[in-house]
């Protein structure tokens, strides 16, 4: 069953066609990886899906709804969460506060109720806390709960970003180069977590990734892009042996 469909998706920046008419489907419950050389348009595809960029043409359908023109702040509530290639955390807040913001799309209280801190605000806050704690448990972050994110090492911050995305209770999670900057051990942990996110939480995963070991390890399907165009889709092995993919990476 398809959860996300991109149809002839395209965006131009001036004369540059960053994404040039790409069509792909992501099935519910799969781990779908986008690979390609630098500047191929992978992150641009993510920015189009999370509506930070407005597509020049084409259509995005998520879970039966057309989201091509949905305002970007509604995307999280609709069920798409994401992480960023270079960690985008709230640096001056604690881990806990960062994750609590992940629940923003599901807030139930109005600002005027919060000013008075009515009993229902407290009830809502407890519920938010409970959900966040589940994610903290899931990713083993208890140790850092009250630490200001700024002071944490890069590898931990990458995990926190995943945690924050999970706190939005998504149906689909977009991971932008989750393993960049991680050491071998952390990358191995990551591959377990990505599988757990799919298997235990039932969340579909779409990721952009350069580490081919990780890609082979976890992906169900791989899509290769270059110059904003799709070159191949299929199982990791098929795509890696595809002549056009080899050409894109090695030249010739």
């Amino acid at each position, binding site marked *: 069953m398809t959860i996300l469909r991109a149809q002839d998706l395209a965006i131009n920046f001036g004369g540059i066609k960053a994404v040039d008419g790409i069509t792909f489907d992501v099935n519910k419950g799969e781990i779908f990886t986008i690979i390609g050389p630098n500047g191929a348009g992978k992150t641009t595809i993510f920015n189009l899906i999370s509506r930070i960029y407005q597509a020049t043409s084409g259509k995005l359908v998520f879970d039966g709804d057309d989201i091509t023109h949905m305002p970007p702040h509604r995307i999280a509530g609709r069920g798409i969460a994401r992480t960023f290639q270079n960690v985008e955390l709230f640096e001056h807040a604690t881990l806990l506060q960062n994750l609590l*913001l992940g629940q923003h799309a599901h807030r139930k209280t109005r600002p005027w109720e919060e000013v008075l801190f009515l009993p229902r605000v407290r009830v809502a806050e407890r519920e938010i806390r409970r959900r966040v704690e589940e994610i903290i448990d899931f990713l083993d972050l208890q140790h850092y709960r009250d630490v200001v994110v700024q002071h944490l090492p890069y590898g931990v911050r990458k995990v926190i970003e995943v945690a924050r995305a999970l706190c939005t209770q998504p149906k689909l999670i977009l991971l932008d180069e989750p393993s960049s900057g991680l050491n071998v051990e952390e990358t191995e942990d990551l591959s377990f977590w990505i599988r757990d996110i799919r298997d235990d939480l039932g969340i579909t995963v779409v990721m952009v990734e350069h580490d081919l070991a990780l890609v082979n390890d976890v992906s169900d399907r791989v899509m290769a892009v270059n110059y904003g165009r799709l070159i191949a889709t299929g199982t990791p092995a098929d795509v890696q042996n595809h002549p056009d993919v080899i050409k894109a990476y090695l030249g010739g």
Partner: protein
Amino acid sequence: MRFIFKTRYDQDINLFPHGGAVFWYSLLAVTLLSVPLIVTPFYVGELSFLFIWSLAGLSLMVLTGYTGLISIGHAAFLGIGAYVHAYLVRHGVPFIPAILCGGFAAAAAGLVIGIPAIRMRGLYLAIATLAFSAIAEEVFVRWETLTGGSRGVPVPKPQFLGIEIDNEIGFYYLCLAILVLCILGIVNLLRAPTGRAWIAIRDSEIAAQSMGVNLAGYKALAFAVSAFLAGIAGGLFAHKVGYLTPDIFTPILSIQLLMLVMVGGVGSIHGAIFGAIFLVLLPTVISIARDYLPAAIGQQPALEPGIYGLILVLVVLLEPLGLNGLWLKIKFFFSQFPMYKSATFKRQKTYMRTERLQ
């Protein structure tokens, strides 16, 4: 050393994290309540000024310290609140509705400037708010029915539940009560989704948006809340000075407020209070210092703004978290005693800077 064992989520949700905080804040409350019975009316009046400055500082703290939007136009919001309040009070409106109207008028002005300003950030926003402040100052001079023009208007004493508050002590308690209520409201917002959304906008707009924060809505809300508080502070200020003229609400006042926030410590309520204490004390200290400085320096009329500038530069260079940062360090030192490590607060350079929404 204090170890806090967390066994319930409410411990993180409550106003006070532990019994020690309850004790110290109660002590502070008792002190503040009993101060007018001890000190002379002059100092009671100065303390009322301190509360008004704290309220104005709190207002800018919401906008600049928590939402990360710089305003050099807050004098305008203070002015709008002051004039509207003074006008209503002169026409027989009771104190509470009048000051609320002043606050809402300022909030409306905040929305008017805030909604176009949402597309701007940093320096551009600062300049836009400065321009707004200049326009507002001109309006204060011209709109004679409301403001009395450049001659100004007298402000009657506040009437509270039919009783006229004509002494410093009554006004002291009035200012204290309003300040405490406003701080409580803001602290409540900050421990709820709205406050977290503001902080998120300050630290990373793109991530906040991807987590479902409506950037425009929350920025406009921050402007409105901040202007509302400034308007309330303006209303109290009107009573305090007793006579309003447009030359009170100049950009210099806005810059002083910004300095209050920076020196006090960006991103903390304590910082607003510390900054206000600093700003109330500084002119007194400077006027005393003038007598001891060589005449060439001591008689300079520009000594005061010069010192303000110097202090701002020093704070940014040496202690970016301001007086609140200093306070936290002292508190930490005693809480860890004797295990304190001098490297604890060593500043680290972070090289991770990422693409931002422009």
